[in-house]
């Protein structure tokens, strides 16, 4: 069964009781989306524990939507986009409720295993630090636009901002990030 088929089957299946068929379909969706979703949650929140929590919460909400009776059939891209929208809302809820730890890794909560980071650990540390130097909203916009390849309209739907605001905020965020990514910039900060 392909991912697209599993999404269609999953959306089409009915009944309150979870069937084995539903679970198998969910597994395919999960396997295809959990890693990128977790990476997004981690980079925006800056904390592994928050990313883990919100990943689970995102899928609970996703499954809850189906149980709520919405039988909206979605394709693969829409499902992925929908999951990112849920995750974005959950992140927003977190920082509305005063999750101050979003801005730092001073408590050793953050994340990247530099030793296993591959061929250029310094470059990877730079990306991490660049993201930390940005505001959570800017991190979100950059990730959704440049990693997930979402359009301004899709980002607007996910974040609840207007497409015009996205344009301006994304421009500023990109400018800021590009400045920080220039060699030597982070060391002087």
């Amino acid at each position, binding site marked *: 069964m392909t991912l697209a088929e599993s999404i269609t089957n999953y959306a089409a299946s009915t009944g309150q009781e979870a069937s084995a068929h539903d679970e198998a379909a969910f597994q395919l969706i999960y396997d295809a989306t959990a890693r990128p979703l977790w990476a997004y949650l981690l980079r925006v929140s800056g904390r592994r524990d928050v990313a883990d929590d919100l990943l689970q919460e995102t899928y609970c909400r*996703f499954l809850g939507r189906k149980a709520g009776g919405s039988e909206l059939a979605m394709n693969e891209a829409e499902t992925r986009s929908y999951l990112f929208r849920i995750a974005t809302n959950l992140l927003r809820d977190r920082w509305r409720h005063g999750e101050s730890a979003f801005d730092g890794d001073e408590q050793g909560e953050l994340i990247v295993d530099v030793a296993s980071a591959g061929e250029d650990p310094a470059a990877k540390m730079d*990306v991490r630090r660049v993201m930390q130097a940005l505001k959570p909203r800017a991190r979100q916009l950059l990730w959704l636009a440049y990693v997930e390849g979402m359009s301004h309209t899709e980002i607007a739907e996910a974040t609840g901002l207007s497409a015009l605001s996205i344009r301006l905020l994304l421009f500023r965020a990109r400018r800021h990030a590009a400045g920080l990514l220039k060699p030597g910039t982070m060391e002087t900060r």
Partner: protein
Amino acid sequence: MNAMRCGYENETIRALQTGAWSETLINHRKSCAACREAEVVAKALRQDASDLAAQHTPPPSALVWAAAERHRRMAALARATRFLRVLQIAGVIYAAVLVVWGLHSLAGHGGMILPGLDAKSLNATIEGVGLAVLFVGSGLWYALRRDERRIS
């Protein structure tokens, strides 16, 4: 060209994803600082994203599925017990009104408010109050007892 966003930016990001750079896009990239900047940022972030995704092993889907099921059951339970809670509140209000009314009636029997209440009516009133207390009390006891059991 708009200083904020180049019309080719989306195509540049898409080309980064697919690796399909058209001739026009390659030529444009040479002259567009905004697209080059977007490319630098996008490349760095995408590399980071793929490294993170490679490092992380998400919890098994069965675990998440089970958590979602628990979540779903809790939500269903909360919906189902909402009616019981309304009944509990209504029961408490009813009992309070009944007590006030009973006291009022008894006071009236003493000649202050309801002088027409004779011994027969008083007996009927007391029986009525007794029955009401029995029914309301047993209903409340049952509902509250179920809550306690669930909490423990």
